[in-house]
């Protein structure tokens, strides 16, 4: 399954078995706290990647071992000690994480002082400012996915492409934005609002709801009073979004409904039932539905059970493989304080392109953050796909409807609009 990249790593390892001194790799993941469900997937994915890498000879004949630290509720006071412990206690040569949202890049100095490689998936535009502002100091820090900012512009591009394809003819050019109070939601909502006019859209409503929320009546009343062509809900909690659909579909407007992240979780479909059908959502970081992605999804579920979530685990899986390959090409890993060797690995990460189960990883320079396709590049081989998905049958996984060439099914008019 690790296919081409795996073959490449095995090739660089020149048939050596993973028998040498163990290379410690760290992962600071939320094993407890509100994000523990995702944290468990990050841990599973790291273990799966570790086993595959070691089966291919490790890194130049040295096996890797992954050490985990709990980042709990992901505050700075949780994340920084977790990173420091990985460095001091386990002497890790790299830290490969899923997401930790609470430190706002404050952990970067801990990493920079140690001079090791750090790949995370915090989906945070602040990363651009911090690393781009001092690329020399933060040479080893990479964000393996595009920032949340791209969700905004990406949605507008998707809508215009859909309109141009003739599959959808909007009644007007209005977008209603409904955002939650968390920064992730607000950044995306603001990005849509700021770029809307440039893409030919008007913002008819910008509503901030206090979350968690289950009573959508007042918001729906505003939407029904001035029906927009698109309703964009950037709040992400699945049960709240499911409640929105349950209350929207009995008296719908002729609008596409786009939601953030939540519909990718099974809780959304379970609560919304058939009202989930037709809902659009997107992700800048998930395993694809193509040959490579599905092979990973299947192997992951076979190993960890049908209820496991390979879509979530994919980020750690890809980045650990990517790191192992680049370290092998660079001549080996470097521990804390071995700046020169880690600089070589960082150089490889910056200059090479990796095709994993999530698509292509390639970084903005000097920001060292994932480039999204088609939001920032027109070439699918040069950026990580910003995937647009649609629930077409709530009993099954969502279909990937854009961008090409990753599409698994064409866009389908939502049932409330077709009727």
């Amino acid at each position, binding site marked *: 399954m690790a296919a081409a990249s795996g073959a490449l790593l095995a090739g660089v390892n020149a048939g050596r078995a993973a028998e040498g001194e163990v290379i410690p790799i760290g992962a600071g993941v939320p*094993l407890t706290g509100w994000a523990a469900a995702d944290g468990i997937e990050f841990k599973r994915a790291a273990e799966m990647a570790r086993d595959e890498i070691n089966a291919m000879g490790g890194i130049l004949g040295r096996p890797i071992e992954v050490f985990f630290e*709990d980042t709990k509720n992901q505050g*700075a006071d949780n994340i920084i*000690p977790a990173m420091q412990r990985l460095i*001091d206690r386990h002497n890790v040569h790299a830290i490969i994480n899923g997401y930790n949202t609470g430190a*706002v890049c404050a952990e970067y100095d801990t990493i920079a002082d140690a001079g090791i490689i750090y790949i995370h998936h915090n989906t945070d535009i602040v990363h651009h400012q911090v690393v781009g502002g001092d690329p020399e100091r933060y040479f080893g820090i990479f964000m393996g996915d595009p920032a949340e900012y791209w969700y905004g512009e990406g949605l507008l591009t998707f809508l215009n492409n859909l309109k141009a394809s003739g599959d959808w003819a909007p009644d007007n050019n209005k977008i209603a934005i409904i955002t939650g*109070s*968390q*920064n992730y939601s607000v950044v995306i909502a603001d990005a849509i609002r700021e770029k809307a006019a440039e893409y030919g859209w008007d913002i008819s409503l910008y509503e*901030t709801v206090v979350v968690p929320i289950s009573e959508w009546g007042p918001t729906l009343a505003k939407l029904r009073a001035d029906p927009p062509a698109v309703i964009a809900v950037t709040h992400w909690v699945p049960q709240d979004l499911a409640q929105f659909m349950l209350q929207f579909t009995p008296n719908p407007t002729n609008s596409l409904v786009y939601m953030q992240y939540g519909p990718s979780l099974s809780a959304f479909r379970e609560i919304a039932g058939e009202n989930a059908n037709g809902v659009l959502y997107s992700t800048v970081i998930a395993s694809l539905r193509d040959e490579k992605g599905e092979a990973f999804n299947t192997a992951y579920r076979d190993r960890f059970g049908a209820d496991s979530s390979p879509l979530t685990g994919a980020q750690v899986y890809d980045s650990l493989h990517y790191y192992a390959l680049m370290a092998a090409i660079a001549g080996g890993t470097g521990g804390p304080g071995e700046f020169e060797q880690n600089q070589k690995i960082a150089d490889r990460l910056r200059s090479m392109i990796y095709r994993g189960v999530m698509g292509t990883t390639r970084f903005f320079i000097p920001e060292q953050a994932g480039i999204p396709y088609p939001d920032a590049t027109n070439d699918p081989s040069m950026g990580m796909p910003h995937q647009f998905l649609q629930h077409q049958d709530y009993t099954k996984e969502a279909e990937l409807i854009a961008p090409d060439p990753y599409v698994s099914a064409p866009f389908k008019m939502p049932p409330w609009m077709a009727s």
Partner: protein
Amino acid sequence: MTMPIDPDLMRDPDQNKRRDLTIAAAAIVVCVVLPFVFPNRYLIGQGVTLFLWVAVVSQWNLVFGVGGIFSLAQLAIFAVGGYSAAMLALYLNVSLWFGMFLGGLVATGFSLIVGLACLRLSGAYVALLTLALATALQVLIITDTTCFMRQGVTCMTFTGGSRGLSRFGDFGFTAMLGRANAPLGNYFLAFAVALAAMLFAYLVIYSPIGLAFRAIRDNKLYSIGRGISSVRFQLLIFGASAFFTGMAGAVFAGHYRAIGANILDTSLLLFLLSMMVIGGLGRFWGPLAGTTALLLFDEAMKELGEWRLAGLGAILLLSVIFMPNGIVGLFRSRPAAR
């Protein structure tokens, strides 16, 4: 809840002083020497955490243990101190050194307001009101989404919202001591705050004011009858216990170079409450003993990964059953009956 009578109060004061001075001297020597014997960044970082929580719990112990007021507002006071220092640095370029004292003062003002709100309440109602205030503060921060300042393509809200505040600077130890020794600067700053907080707690507990706090706690009507103003002393205890708590909040912000609303999570509040109870409620050495013990337990439990919380819960349960007077209570012999 009935507070145990501290045997120290029934023992020869000079004997108490000698014992406390010996323990304090030993603790200070250990804390000063430790980072040089084990110059490990992680250990030094954990030392900072220990000192900050000792400072907070020692002040909370004044309100909760000595004063008998079941306030759950201590982390909110800590957050007010931390946020004040961070916002002053971010928006007005006030040095964190100065902001640390201002944070303490703002926290004191906030705590006095909390004390005023609790004047007519007692027991569980104080706990409910103060918990509600802390929760409301957290919700207010998280739901702050109005753009206050632009940073590149992102909008910065006044309080930082759910993302929190960062990039407001630090105490400048990197420039003063070099990057390698900068953690030592934070270590000794947090140590100084904890030491000052403990000294302050000591002076309060063994002063006439401390006796008045205990009198109100043990028999409010009788103490009022003896001329002690419960209003005055309740406000005094809320105000006095807040300054070092607020300062600790500012040091927290400067050490981590970030502060967020998660600092007001109930789980952390309960963790600190457990430190106070396990150490010995109302006892001077209780906060130090409880904080040290729980942080050590937490450290040991880290090896259990996702089972850490269950392990910690089991230890708490056993401690409450077998050490009802806390760790300090284990080392105190009963005073002779008089």
